[in-house]
């Protein structure tokens, strides 16, 4: 292996380096400022995520990013940049949605924002990871920060339970993933994904390799909460502080799709016939179980947890579609839409949560239309989008995913997905019916500027992508991985 560092490599890592530095700064400042000045810390965290976004835009203009950097450990292609932008979007929304929630809680805010930023660093590295080691280390950085955030409200038994379950199952799945990575490394002897792809192109199908691929797949399916690796999701989503839940449902999942796509599209594409069968079964089981279980929930956070499991099933259709570039394209579109609509729905729960865990049951949505018409209408928009009704972003995302599945020869799965989307209407409309047709508490709804801004951004995103999808589709098409 020829190896060379270029000074420009570090320039291309500017977003990651800057975000790490800001995480450290927040940690130091929180000691100096204490609990009373937390709004400033939230403001600083938002600004740092914004500047990191600007740095990502700057990196996009550099010609040096055409080749992998730092000896092939990382790559800054359009695909990575798209995921970095999406991760930063979800990070910024989380910080804004957290400001009031964490400020009112008796827990330190500085460490909270610092942990969010560090998990953001992990996700940025995940988007760029180009060899097995850098991908694994970045994934673990993201995951460890997530475990702590899940248990951040440590006086709440539910939050501690969520953290413990997430940690134990997460550590176990990381072990499975790592074992798979080691078997693939043992079979090939190389760490880099392009080198692995080159090697596998001439390699024959061996059981050792298949076992490695299967274990890697299992480890990653855990991270995106697909059946049968989904059991942690409802408990963790219910127990974690709601802004953290909103974050879990978008950021880490999006980053996990980035590495799932990169590993399976770049390195393992040749063995599509072998793992495609497994993914098809998992996808079908995930869609059915997620949607059916969601029907039975009365807690909105749990319902949205099962809905996000179902959504993971839809997105796996795109993974199946890796034979054509439609699969990857569909995933990108869907994840963009999903970030807006899912985060928006969770932000409405944050808005309704007055104290502790109140505001989480479906009945807390009763009469929302009377209390605040805009809030009810926006929630309806998110629900329509989650159900995949036009003209919303969710429809566009599902359309491309289902088309990708058809083109890859999985028509039966696409039909199942459409049927399951119809099932999902039932539970989404339970919330809608509660908002518009039921009498509820007359208490006035109090929002904050930050929360209103988050909801506005999510609503505009959901609607604009749904009404004028063309520009987004064009941009995302240029972000598809080159084989």
């Amino acid at each position, binding site marked *: 292996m020829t190896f060379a560092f270029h000074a420009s490599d570090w320039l291309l890592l500017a977003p990651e380096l800057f975000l790490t530095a800001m995480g450290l700064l927040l940690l130091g400042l929180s000691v100096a400022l204490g609990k009373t000045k937390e709004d400033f810390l939230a403001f600083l965290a938002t600004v740092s995520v914004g500047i990191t976004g600007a740095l990502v835009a700057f990196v996009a203009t550099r010609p040096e990013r055409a080749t992998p950097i*730092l000896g092939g450990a990382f790559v800054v292609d359009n695909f990575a940049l798209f995921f970095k932008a999406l991760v930063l979007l979800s990070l910024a929304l989380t910080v804004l949605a957290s400001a009031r929630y964490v400020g009112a809680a008796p827990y330190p805010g500085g*460490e909270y924002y610092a942990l969010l930023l560090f998990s953001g660093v*992990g996700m940025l590295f995940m988007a760029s990871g180009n060899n097995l080691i850098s991908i694994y280390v970045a994934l673990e950085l993201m995951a460890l920060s997530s475990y702590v955030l899940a248990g951040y409200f440590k006086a709440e038994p539910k939050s501690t339970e969520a953290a413990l379950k997430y940690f134990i199952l997460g550590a176990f799945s990381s072990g499975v993933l790592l074992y798979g990575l080691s078997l693939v490394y043992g079979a090939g002897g190389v760490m880099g994904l392009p080198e692995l792809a080159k090697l596998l192109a001439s390699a024959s199908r061996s*059981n050792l390799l298949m076992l490695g691929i299967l274990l890697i797949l299992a480890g990653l399916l855990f991270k995106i909460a697909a059946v049968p690796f989904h059991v942690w999701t409802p408990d963790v989503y219910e127990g974690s502080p709601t802004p953290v839940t909103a974050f879990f449902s978008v950021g880490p999942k999006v980053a996990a799709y980035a590495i799932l796509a990169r590993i399976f599209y770049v390195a393992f594409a040749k063995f599509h016939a072998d793992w495609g069968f497994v993914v098809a079964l998992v996808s079908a089981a995930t869609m059915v179980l997620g949607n059916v279980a969601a029907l039975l929930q009365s807690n909105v956070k749990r319902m949205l947890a099962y809905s996000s499991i179902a959504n993971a099933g839809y997105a796996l259709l795109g993974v199946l579609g890796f034979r054509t570039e439609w699969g990857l394209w569909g995933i990108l579109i869907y994840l963009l839409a999903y970030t807006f609509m899912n985060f928006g729905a969770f932000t409405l729960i944050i808005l309704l949560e007055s104290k502790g865990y109140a505001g989480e049951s479906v009945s807390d949505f009763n009469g929302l239309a009377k209390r605040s018409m805009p809030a009810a209408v926006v929630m309806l928009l998110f629900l329509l989008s989650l159900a995949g009704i036009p003209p919303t972003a969710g429809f566009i995302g599902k359309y491309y995913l289902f088309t990708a599945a058809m083109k890859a020869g999985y028509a039966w799965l696409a039909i199942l997905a459409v049927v399951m989307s119809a099932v999902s209407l039932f539970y989404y409309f339970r919330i809608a019916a509660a908002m518009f047709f039921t009498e509820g508490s007359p208490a006035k709804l109090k929002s904050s500027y930050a929360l209103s801004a988050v909801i506005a951004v999510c609503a505009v995103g959901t609607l604009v992508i749904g009404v004028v999808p063309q520009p987004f589709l064009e941009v995302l098409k240029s972000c598809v991985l080159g084989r």
Partner: protein
Amino acid sequence: MSDGVLLTGGAGVLFAVLAAVALASAIAVVVARSPVHSALFLLLSFVLVAAIFILQQAEFVGAVQMLVYAGGIMVLFLFVVMLVNPGVTRSEKSFQHQWDVAVVLLPIFLLPFLYILGTEKLPDVPVKAEAFRMVGTRVVGNTEAVSWVLFRDYLVPFEVASVFLLVAMIGAVVLGKRSLEKMD
């Protein structure tokens, strides 16, 4: 053992013995009733793994294994054992009530693994250990070879790991610290 495996002859026998005892003591860590016995078995397994590293001519990794695991981490475990009063945990059985499930599931997962790992022809490993210590065209010492890999090939993942450790520390403090009101 097929051709091309690093350890043959006497070294191979030594490896088999070391590996078998290391595995046995690792199982004993879980099975032992007394935490002190568990800790001692863990120490034994750490030392044996260090010996295996040295047998593979990876002196640096072996030394690190001794210093960090058998030294530092072991001291940490011993502190915990001292603080939690082993007598109380001795009769704890809460982790053993799923034996029946485990007995059914274990063969289902273990047998395919053993079959694959047993029948698979593994890629050839260079017989000469020097091949692992090549930097460019130069053969260097084991410690130098490790440092080349760590601080050049995987420099940034190495640094990411340091942020990871920082997060672990913050997490331990945040979750372990008593709340502010109680401290007043």
